[in-house]
C-alpha cells in the first residue's frame, strides 16, 4: 500500500489538537498557535501534492488514493477513503481554509487552547466528509463536525450566540437524522455502504423492493439543510453572523459545501429519480437565489449581509446540479470552491473590520477607505469576485453554471429558470456594491481616525486568497479539468 496521503491529511489536525490538549497549558498561547499552524500547514501542502499527483489521464481510475481497511464487520462497513475529481478540490479547499483560519485567528486571546483544539477537530471532520467513500464513515465525520462548531459559536461568538449555536445543532441534527434513515434504507435496499459501488452499480443492485424516491428525498433533505436550500436555511444567517470570524470562514467556506457535495453524490446514486424531480429542485433553486438575494438587500449588519448572500449563491449550486448537464454540474462544483474562497475572504475581511473598527452596523460605518486602505481594497476585490466580475473565480463559476443550465436538455423550461437565476447576479451587484459603498466610501468619519489597518499576518492570508481567486478566474481549467473527471461518470449515468 502506498503512502496513506488521505489519512495523514485528515488526521494531522486531530493530532495537533491532541498535542495541544496533552502538552500545552493555556498560558502558552504562542506555542498553541504555532502548533496549530504547523498541523494545518502540512495537510495543506499534502493536499496540493495530492492535487498535483492526481492522475488526469484518460485511462486512470476514477477514484484515486484509495485506502480500504475492514472496520465494522457486522455492518459490512469499511474504513474506506479516496478522492475523485469532485472531492479532491473540496479537500484542497478545506485544507487551505483550515490553515488560513489559523492565521485569521492569530489575534485570538480568549480561551486560546480550547479554541484552537476545536478548530483543528473541525478541520479533521470536514476533511473526513470529503474523503470518505463509506457512507457510515461519511456520516460519522458529518456528525462529529457539529460538536466543534457548537462550541466555537457559543463560546467565542457574539450576539445571540447560544441561541444561534443551539439552532445550528438542532437543524443539522434534524437533517442528519433524516439522512441516517436514508442511509439505512439505502443499505438494506442494496446491501452496501460503499459510495463508489452505489454510484457505479446504481440501483441495479437492488435486493428488496423499496421505492428509490423516498430514500432520495431523505438523503437530499439532510444535505439541503446544510447547503442550505430555502426554506431550510434559517439557521445559516444566525450561525454565520454570531460565529467568531474563523467559524464563519469555515462555515461559509467549507462546511456548507458538504451539502452541495452530498447532493451531487446523491444525484450520482439516483440518476433516474434526479431526472424525475429535477424540475421541482430547479424551481427551489431559483427561489433560493432570488429570495436569498432579496433578503440580502435589506441587511444592514455586515456579517449578516454576507451570510444571506451565501443562501443566494448556494442557489446557483443547486441550479447547476439539477440542470443535470456536464457543464452545469462542473460549474456547480467550481462555484462551491469559488464561493469558499470568496466568502471565506469576505468573512475574514468583515471580521478584520469589526476587530479593528468595533462596529459592523452598515448604518454607522462609512468612509473607511481612507483609514484602512488595504482592508478596503481586498474587501472590494472579494466583493467584486462575489458578484461575478470577469477575471475572478466567481465569474468563471457562475458563467459555467448559467451556460450549462441554459443548454441543458433534461429539464423542461430550464431556459426561463436560468434567466430568472441570472437576475440573482444583478441583485448581487446591488447588495455587494451597496455594502462596499456604505462601508468604505462616502464622507470620512472622524471617530474612525487612527484605526489600525491589516497586520503583516493579515496581509499574508489576504494575498494568498486574492492570488487564488485571480488564478482560478483567469485559468479555471486548473480546477475544471479535475472536476470534469469526477462529474462525467455521474452525467453518464444521468444520460440524456
Amino acid at each position: 500500500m502506498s503512502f496513506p496521503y488521505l489519512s495523514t491529511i485528515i488526521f494531522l489536525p486531530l493530532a495537533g489538537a491532541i498535542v495541544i490538549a496533552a502538552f500545552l497549558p493555556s498560558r502558552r498561547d504562542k506555542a498553541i498557535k504555532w502548533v496549530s499552524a504547523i498541523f494545518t500547514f502540512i495537510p495543506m501542502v499534502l493536499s496540493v501534492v495530492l492535487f498535483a499527483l492526481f492522475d488526469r489521464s484518460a485511462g486512470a481510475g476514477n477514484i484515486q488514493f484509495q485506502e480500504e481497511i475492514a472496520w465494522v464487520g457486522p455492518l459490512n462497513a469499511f474504513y474506506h477513503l479516496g478522492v475523485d475529481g469532485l472531492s479532491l478540490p473540496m479537500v484542497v479547499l478545506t485544507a487551505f481554509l483550515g490553515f488560513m483560519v489559523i492565521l485569521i485567528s492569530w489575534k485570538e486571546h480568549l480561551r486560546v487552547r480550547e479554541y484552537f483544539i476545536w478548530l483543528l477537530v473541525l478541520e479533521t471532520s470536514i476533511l473526513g466528509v470529503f474523503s470518505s467513500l463509506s457512507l457510515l464513515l461519511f456520516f460519522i465525520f458529518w456528525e462529529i463536525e457539529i460538536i466543534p462548531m457548537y462550541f466555537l459559536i457559543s463560546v467565542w461568538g457574539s450576539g445571540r450566540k447560544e441561541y444561534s449555536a443551539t439552532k445550528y445543532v438542532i437543524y443539522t441534527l434534524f437533517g442528519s437524522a433524516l439522512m441516517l434513515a436514508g442511509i439505512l434504507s439505502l443499505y438494506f435496499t442494496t446491501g452496501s455502504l460503499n459510495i463508489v459501488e452505489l454510484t457505479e452499480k446504481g440501483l441495479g443492485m437492488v435486493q428488496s423492493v423499496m421505492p428509490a424516491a423516498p430514500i432520495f428525498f431523505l438523503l437530499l433533505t439532510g444535505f439541503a439543510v446544510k447547503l442550505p436550500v430555502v426554506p431550510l436555511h434559517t439557521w445559516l444567517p444566525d450561525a454565520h453572523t454570531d460565529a467568531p470570524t474563523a467559524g464563519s470562514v469555515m462555515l461559509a467556506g467549507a462546511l456548507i459545501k458538504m451539502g452541495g457535495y452530498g447532493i451531487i453524490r446523491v444525484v450520482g446514486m439516483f440518476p433516474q429519480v434526479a431526472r424525475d424531480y429535477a424540475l421541482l429542485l430547479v424551481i427551489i433553486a431559483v427561489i433560493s437565489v432570488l429570495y436569498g438575494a432579496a433578503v440580502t438587500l435589506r441587511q444592514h449588519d455586515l456579517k449578516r449581509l454576507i451570510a444571506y448572500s451565501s443562501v443566494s449563491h448556494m442557489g446557483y449550486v443547486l441550479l447547476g446540479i439539477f440542470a443535470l448537464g456536464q457543464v452545469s454540474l462542473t460549474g456547480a462544483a467550481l462555484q462551491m470552491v469559488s464561493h469558499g474562497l470568496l466568502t471565506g475572504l469576505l468573512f475574514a475581511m468583515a471580521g478584520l473590520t469589526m476587530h479593528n473598527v468595533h462596529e459592523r452596523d452598515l448604518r454607522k460605518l462609512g468612509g473607511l477607505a481612507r483609514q484602512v486602505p488595504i482592508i478596503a481594497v481586498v474587501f472590494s476585490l472579494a466583493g467584486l469576485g462575489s458578484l461575478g466580475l470577469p477575471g475572478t473565480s466567481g465569474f468563471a463559476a457562475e458563467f459555467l453554471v448559467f451556460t450549462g443550465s441554459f443548454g441543458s436538455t433534461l429539464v423542461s423550461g430550464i431556459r426561463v429558470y436560468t434567466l430568472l437565476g441570472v437576475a440573482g447576479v444583478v441583485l448581487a451587484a446591488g447588495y455587494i456594491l451597496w455594502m462596499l459603498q456604505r462601508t468604505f466610501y462616502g464622507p470620512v468619519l472622524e471617530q474612525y481616525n487612527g484605526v489600525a489597518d491589516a497586520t503583516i499576518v493579515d496581509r499574508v492570508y489576504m494575498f494568498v486568497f486574492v492570488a487564488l481567486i485571480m488564478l482560478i478566474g483567469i485559468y479555471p481549467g486548473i480546477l475544471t479539468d479535475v472536476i470534469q473527471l469526477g462529474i462525467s461518470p455521474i452525467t453518464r449515468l444521468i444520460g440524456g
Partner: protein
Amino acid sequence: MNLELFIPELILVASAVVIILLDLFVQRKGVLAVTSLIGVIAAAAVTLTMWGGTDQTIFDNRLAVDSFALFFKLLFLGIAALVILASADYASKLARFQGEYYALILLSALGMMLMVAATELITIYIALELASISLYALVGFLKDPKSSEASLKYLLLGAIASAVMLYGMAMVFGFTGKTQLGEVGGAIQATSLPGVLTSPALMAGIVLLIAGFGFKIAAVPFHMWVPDVYEGAPTPITAYLSVGSKAAGFALILRVFYTTFGLPAWLSLDWGMIFAILAAFSMTVGNILAIPQANIKRMLGYSSIAQAGYLMVGLATMGMAPTADVLGRSGILFFLASYAVTNLGAFIAIIAISNKIGSDLIQDFSGMGKRAPVLAATLTLCLISLIGMPPAAGFMAKFYIFSGAVQHGLLWLVIVAVINSVISAYYYLRVAKVMWFSEPASEEKVPSSGALRLALGLSCLGVVVLGIIPAFMMNLAEAAAKMFAF
C-alpha cells in the same frame, strides 16, 4: 448435574454472606467494597471461562448456560463492579449497614443473572423477585423522606407489576399446561389457529406479560415510577437501576418472546406491533417530558424511558421476523452494552460533582467546565453518546439497532426514533451548555476519589472503544443473539 456451571452465582452468594459477616468485625469499611469487588471479579473470571462452550442446562432444565446468558452475566458483573466502585465515596457516608449495602448489590446482580438464565416461568418469577426486592431495599437506603418515598413507590408499583406478570404467566400456563418456555412454545405451535383465536387466554396472557416486563424496562405507559425513584434513590443505585435492571428486563423479554411466542408468525407480528407502538410512545413521551426537568437525575430518568423506546425498536424488529432476523436481537445486546457504559459514565460523573456541591439541580452544575474540566468533559462525552452522536458508543448502537428495523420494514419507526434523537439533543446539550458556558458559583475545584476516577475512566473508555471499533462487541452480541438452544 453439573454444578460447576453454577459457580459464578455461588461466588456471589458467598461474597454477600462474607461481607455481611465482615461488617460486624472490621472497622475499616473500605474492606467491604474491596471484598465485594473481588467477589464480582472472581465470578466474572469463572463466567468468562465458560464462554464459547456448548450450551447446557442445569437444575433440571430450569437454568440455561448458553452464550446469551453468559453475555448478560458478564454485562451485569461489569455493571455491578462499576456501581461498587462508584459507591465507594457514597457508602462511606452511610453511618450503618454498609455491609448490607454491598451485599444487596451483589444479591441483586445474582437475581439478574438468574433472570437471564431462567428458562421456566416459575424460576423467572423467583429470579425477578430476588433482583427486585434487593433493589427496593437499596433505593430506600438513604432513609430521608425522598428516598423512603421512592422506595415505597417502587415497592408498591413493583409488586403490582409482579402480580400482573404472574397473572399473565398463569394464563399462559392455563392455555398450554406447561411452564418450560420451550414446551410452552411447542404447545402454542401445536395449537391450530382457530384454537388460539377462540381462546382469549393466550393473548391476554401475552399482554399481561408485556405489562409486567414493561415495568422493569420502564416503557411507557408503565413508567410512572421512574422519575421519583430515580430522583430519590442513592445516585449509584439510580445508575444501577437504569442500566442493570433495564438490561435484565430486556434479556427476559428477548428469551421469553423468542423461545415461547416466536412462532407462529402471525402471533409474533402481533406482539411485534405492540412493541413498535410502545417504542414510539416511550421515545416521544420520555424525550418530551425530559425537556422541562430541573433535576439531572429526574432528567436522566425520563431519558432512560426514551432509551427503552429505542431498545424496543429492536424488539419490534424481532417480532417482525423472529427467525430471519439477527440484527434486531444483537442490536439490543449491543445497545444495552453501550448504554450501560454510557449511562454509568454519566451517573458516575454526576456522583462526583454532586458529592461536592450537594445538589442534583442542573443549574448548580454551572461552570463545571472550569471547576472540574475532566468530569465535565466526560459527562459531556456521555451525553453526546446518549444523543447518539459519533464518535461515541451511542451512535453505533443506534445505527446497529435501527438498521435491523429498516431491514424488516419498520422505516416509519426509525424515522420516529431519529427525530426523537434530535429532540433529545436539546435537553442533553442543555446540561453541557450549563457546564461549559455559565459562570461557576465558586472557584473551588471539585475533587474526586481514586475509585470514582477509575470507574469513570473505565466507562468512558468503553464509550469511545464501542464508538470507534465496535466490531468486536458486535460479534459477541451476534454470537450471543444466535440464541437459545432451549
